[in-house]
């Protein structure tokens, strides 16, 4: 049933184009202390940031690749062949007209300014290492919401930035968070003042345009007491012949009673190693919710987490992974309960097509001294072909007597009878397959914002069209 042509080539049409590079700043190939000084010089880092980077670099070198538990495919990453910083300048434009033409064309093809007009409260667009455009709607800015690039955040808002930066995800959390901490560039810094409810989502769009390149954005979002925010990110890259590395660190802080929702639709091309560390802290009565869709990339390793630090805090991860031929989506969630009456919910759905592989890794931790904590985990896998693969590795530690946990897992297959039934009603095999897959993720997708559920449905359809024949 699997076509020889990779389904991903079809699916990726939307992002599969590149313009010639016009970078004025290039840190060159490979990573040494010199590379880090180069980045720090260009970005005019404060001393503490330069120091932070250099320390992180040492941590990065000292940590082994996690191949004792993770895919050996990680060994295909050659750190010496990667370019760690590329940009045409460090100042993002506030007006779309001021963005350089080739970059503008790139994002226009991806529909970015159009979406901004339609339904977003603000947009940041990152092209390789730096944000090229950053804009927040006036009304939102007037409420005191800060939405800038990470470089501007650390320079202009150090009193907030320094307090939280690297605190949710310490440098040494893992090898790739250390790498990010050493060479980070771009990403968003957002602060929402107490009580401010940002009605429309803020969005960042990450685009890799250059070959052999590593994108290492760093995002820090702080929702102050009682505030609310939805943040969305999208990612694409053209399909190059060499591996590209995307290794982000995203830290979220939801202070007392705040609600923070972070949505990702990852559609990297099939040569991108997507190794991302994402974690949020939820204080008393606060809620951190991750909606995570992984469609592209060669290997994704990503386990968004929530540390429920205050009483009645809530954590949630809703994720969908689509693993086509040659793809491995190694995704999951981490829920660390650290206060009484905290609740967490994980719903993960994966679809493996052709020789694709989807892995779920989940960690749920509820220590003995806590009371009335609850976790619910559901993970469902759908296998399309006989060659498709899925694995589930749940690690659940629940101690004490007053806590409860519920775990459900299922693996199902689209049956030949099901497809025949739908074909008998006039649907092509691909349409039938895509309808089944959409049905499988439907209850989850319904919880997504409209614009993203439509986009996701379309991507699944494109993927399925290419996967049968």
């Amino acid at each position, binding site marked *: 049933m699997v076509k020889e042509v990779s389904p991903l080539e079809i699916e990726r049409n939307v992002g599969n184009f590149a313009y010639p590079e016009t970078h004025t700043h290039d840190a060159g190939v490979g990573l040494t202390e010199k590379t880090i000084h180069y980045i720090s010089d260009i970005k005019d880092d404060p001393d503490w940031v330069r120091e932070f980077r250099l320390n992180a670099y040492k941590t990065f070198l000292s940590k082994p690749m996690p191949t004792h538990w993770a895919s050996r495919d990680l060994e295909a990453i050659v750190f010496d062949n990667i370019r760690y910083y590329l940009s045409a300048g460090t100042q993002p434009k506030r007006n779309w007209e001021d963005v350089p033409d080739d970059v503008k064309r790139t994002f226009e093809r991806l529909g970015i300014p159009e979406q901004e007009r339609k339904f977003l409260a603000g947009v940041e667009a990152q092209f390789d290492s730096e944000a090229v455009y950053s804009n927040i709607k006036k009304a939102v800015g007037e409420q005191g919401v800060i939405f800038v690039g990470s470089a501007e955040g650390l320079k202009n808002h150090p009193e907030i930035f320094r307090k939280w930066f690297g605190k949710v995800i310490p440098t040494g959390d893992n090898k790739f968070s250390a790498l990010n901490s050493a060479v980070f560039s771009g990403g968003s810094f957002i602060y929402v003042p107490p009580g401010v409810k940002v009605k429309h989502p803020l969005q960042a769009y990450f685009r890799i345009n250059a070959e052999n390149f590593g994108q290492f954005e760093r995002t820090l979002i702080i929702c102050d007491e009682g505030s609310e925010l939805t943040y969305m990110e999208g990612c694409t890259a053209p399909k190059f012949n060499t591996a590209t590395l995307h290794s982000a660190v995203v830290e979220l802080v939801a202070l007392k009673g705040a609600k923070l929702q972070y949505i990702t639709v990852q559609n990297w091309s099939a040569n991108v190693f997507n190794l991302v560390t994402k974690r949020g802290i939820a204080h008393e009565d606060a809620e951190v919710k991750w909606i995570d869709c992984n469609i592209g990339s060669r290997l994704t390793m990503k386990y968004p987490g929530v540390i429920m630090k205050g009483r009645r805090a809530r954590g949630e991860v809703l994720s969908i992974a689509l693993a086509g031929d040659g793809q491995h989506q190694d995704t999951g969630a981490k829920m660390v309960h650290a206060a009484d009456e905290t609740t967490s919910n994980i719903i993960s759905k994966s679809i493996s097509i052709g020789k694709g592989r989807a892995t779920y890794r989940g960690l749920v931790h509820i220590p003995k001294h806590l009371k009335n904590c609850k976790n619910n985990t559901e993970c469902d896998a759908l296998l399309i072909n006989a060659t498709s693969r899925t694995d589930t590795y749940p690690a659940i530690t629940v101690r004490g007597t007053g806590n409860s946990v519920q775990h459900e897992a299922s693996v199902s297959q689209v049956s030949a009878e099901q497809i025949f039934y739908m074909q*008998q009603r006039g*649907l*092509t*095999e691909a*349409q039938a397959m895509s309808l089944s897959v959409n049905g*499988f993720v439907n209850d989850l997708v319904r919880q997504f914002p409209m614009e993203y559920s439509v986009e996701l449905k379309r991507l699944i359809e494109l993927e399925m069209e290419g996967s049968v024949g």
Partner: protein
Amino acid sequence: MNKLSISNLRVVIGEQEIIRGLSLAVPKGEVHAIMGPNGSGKSTLAKVLAGHPDYKVTSGEVLMDGEDILALAPDERARKGLFLAFQYPSEIPGVTIANFLRAAVQARLPEGEELEATDYYARLYEKMDLLEMDRSFTSRSVNEGFSGGEKKRNEILQLAMLEPKYAVLDETDSGLDIDALKVVSHGVNSMRGPDRGILVITHYQRLLDYIVPDHVHVMVQGRIVRSGGKELALELEEKGYESYEVKGEVGEPALA
């Protein structure tokens, strides 16, 4: 030309021959019934007509309005106007009846033409009323958690919405109580007309009290062994199939 015509059809699954030289013609405007004992190959015939990939046609032909359909994919046959009401309809979790039927209706429109949602729902509700189905049905997943009767009603709802040229109903009466049988039969009868041929496959005569056929065929061991008018069904009900079953001629038992 205006008929579904099967001639000298032979079908195997694996090594086993199940249809053994079957000929039958269902003209538009007529309702034909195939009756036969379990294992006579009735359901196989239904699936072969629809193009099920597990069965292999070794000889013979099936013409729909003169066009050979055996080389066509199941969905092409369906779009050309062939409908099969399944004996055991599949469940499609997460896909609502409204969305499923909408996709099926849309698949029949010319490229680039979009189905008008309000017209679609108006028609859907009209057909559901005919089959005494509650409106809440539209938002349920296709066949998921349905009772036997609900599944059959759903098959006839699809038949009514898709308006095929030829409809094959495979054991549509199985699993139905008498009230449901009446409703389903009413739905099928409303589909009778000069532009449509209907082939009803059943084990029992009961269904034919409600869907009265123009012709009845007896199928035994992969062949039509006798054809007649509607009174043949009554005779079968009385005497059973035993007299048609030739013992010893065929070594292996046939599958349903």
